[in-house]
């Protein structure tokens, strides 16, 4: 694992989390709710926060990683700005969900579970988002895209590119004026 660098503002975030951890009862069964609280706040579990939990619950840090890595929900790296989740539930599988995932992987140049180098996109597979009638399905940020096809993959990514270009142009014109 790479040395985890701190982003600007991270120190305050860790401080805030440490304070919020204090509010939980010092009991073993607080562990999972604490982990969930941190992930909700930071979108992943920063190592510094894990140390705070260990201190608060008086449990070894390896024990905490043991629990956190057991469950699929927890992430140990910051996700991209845009999160792409490709459903590989049973219904999506029988109509080619894996082809959709592959297309995202090819277009973004990353594998599932990874984040692009510019931290723009992260890609993951999920087991059933529960709208099987729309299979195959991909969830991009908060939007569910049903009846996916490889050409739609291109369309979605193109949409983000256009939005980014537009934002850049607007930023430039604002700078000029």
């Amino acid at each position, binding site marked *: 694992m790479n040395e985890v660098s701190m982003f600007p503002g991270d120190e305050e975030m860790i401080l805030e989390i440490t304070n919020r951890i204090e509010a939980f009862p010092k*009991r*073993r*069964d*607080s*562990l*999972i*709710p604490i*982990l*969930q609280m941190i992930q909700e706040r930071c979108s992943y579990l920063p190592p510094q926060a894990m140390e705070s939990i260990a201190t608060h619950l008086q449990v070894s840090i390896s024990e905490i990683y*043991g*629990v956190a890595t*057991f*469950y*699929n*929900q*927890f992430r140990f790296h910051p996700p991209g700005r845009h999160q792409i989740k490709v459903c*590989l*539930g*049973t*219904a999506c*599988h*029988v109509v*080619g969900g894996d*082809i959709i995932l*592959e*297309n995202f992987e*090819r*277009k973004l140049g990353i594998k599932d579970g990874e984040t692009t180098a510019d931290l723009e996109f992260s890609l993951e597979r*999920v*087991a*059933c*988002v*529960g*709208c*099987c*009638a*729309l*299979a195959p*399905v991909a969830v991009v940020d908060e939007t*569910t895209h*049903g009846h996916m*096809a*490889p*050409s739609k*993959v*291109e369309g979605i990514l193109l949409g983000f590119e256009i939005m980014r270009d537009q934002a850049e142009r607007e930023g430039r014109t604002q700078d000029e004026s």
Partner: protein
Amino acid sequence: MKVDQDSPGARFARLQDECRKRFQARITPGIPVISIGMATCGLAAGAIETRKAFEAILGERGIQARIESVGCLGHCYAEPLVIIENPGFPPIAYHEVTPGKARALVKAFLEEGDPLFEFVLGAMEENDLIPSVMDFPRFHLEKRLVLEGCGRIDPTDLDAYVAAGGYAALAKALAMSPSEVVRTVLESGLRGRGGAGFPAGLKWQCAGNADARVKYVICNADEGDPGAYMDRTILESNPHQVLEGLAICAYAVGAGEGIIYVRAEYPLAVNAVGRAIAQAREHGILGDSVLGTDFHLDAKVFQGSGAFVCGEETALIQSLEGKRGMPLHRPPYPARSGLWGMPTVINNVKTLASVPPIMRNGADWYRSIGSARSPGTAIFSVVGKVVHPGLVEIPTGTTLRTLIFEVCGGPPKQKAFKAVQIGGPSGGCLPGSFLETPVDFDSLTEAGAMMGSGGMVVMDEDSCMVNVARYFLDFTQKESCGKCTFCRIGTRHLLNILDRITRGEGREDDLEKLESLSADIQKGSLCGLGKTAPNPILTSLRYFRDEYEAHIHEKRCPALMCRAITAFYIDLDRCARGCDACVGSCPVEAIFTTRGRKKAIDQDRCVKCGECLVACPAEYDAVRKVSPAELAPIFERLEE
């Protein structure tokens, strides 16, 4: 004995009266009501845009109407689904209501009284004007006990639930002794809907008889099967019914704390249950004195963190205690020694949601529904290759044929039915010869499948059984908690073998290896995950052995699904000169122009996604799919 001098019945009658009044006060007579299905599936299909469109056009036109967000009717194919109650008309359901349809409906139906027959799914009650939904097999073959309120009432509104008769069962139970409640559930024959079908009454009796100061009731909503979503729908669409069942169970066994264990991946359900608990507490349905009696009960939501094995009750308890969710040896059963070593009843969402109707109508009534050995209803999420996918609640004993072909419309596009996979990763695949099997716990288990989670995936001629078995093994292999060697390593080997078979690299003795390894995993695993993990392989081997053999001996996938041994090519006799439709569709630029300005596919580049097959205009229909891959003719690239 009683804290209040009122009986729970009198106390409840007062509550019901208040709720009804409040509920009525919100309804303005003569004003149309537009109910929009806003559970996860509706939202995914665009219900928010539909709602916004309704709001905008109503405002624009200055029309008074009340928009209600309701849960899910289970008709996933028809989402976004909207029911409009326009005074003077029966309530009418509309399917696939896009923003455009929403605007059209307001203008034509609410303004001019034209219900726009072309958009109508059906009327929700019998009438002379519009065909009723009850004329469709999808509706009249269903029997809704658990899903009754889903999609009809606002899940965020306690008054709506109580006004519709909710919590009357709890009041009735509180007037009985706990052992009488247990006896009613025992006599009803209710079996646990989590999959195994253990009689719920026996579990309650065991925990009820246990001598302990503290007892727990847990509602298991850790729905993990990738393809089943009924628990989520129930919690999102009618959380109070589950809460009522939980309260009745807690009273019957003498538990003071209820925990609803919901997957964190279901944020809407987590919110819905949390809100329902707060409302119930506020109205004296939960708390120190439930409906004025000395029975006290508190409830809370615990968010599961996404481990399939936590659906197993001992693993679920481990995770509640803040540990890795690994199953323990049973006995002791949780009903004797569960959470923190105390007697704990763990029931599935559907089991608990079945309890209120049983208490209201009695054990005999429940026994009269469905088959004798598994009375009641079964809920399936039928997905895959059917015309009308969605949630279906049918009396047990209905045959698979009725369920798949009549209720859900069978495979679309006149494709032939091939198999149905029942019960998710623990279940099995049944071929057409089993279509007369009635759906109940025992018949399905005898056939080699199981009720399991209630996930049902219908497959047609285009689905490869080896590929589907591989899919489920891939899932269980990842989800194995790692405690038992056979499950941890054995499933990995099963997956490796299936992997090479689907790649066309299968070996002669692979099928024997699959069988013997499966038997070992079944014997050597502690919990249901390992014991049932080989089921998808064993049943498909039993009924579709020829498909496995075609993969191994001929390197051929009969369903043309396994991509490593299939290929696409363009039939030059059909390809139209100068047509470019496929070229733009190809994500990897594998299509090039060959002799006579016709197109050909570069097999080295092709990723076999099938886009060109879709893009090729129907009048040419030139793209072909073959297996083994070597059958595809090779076309040379022309030097330019």
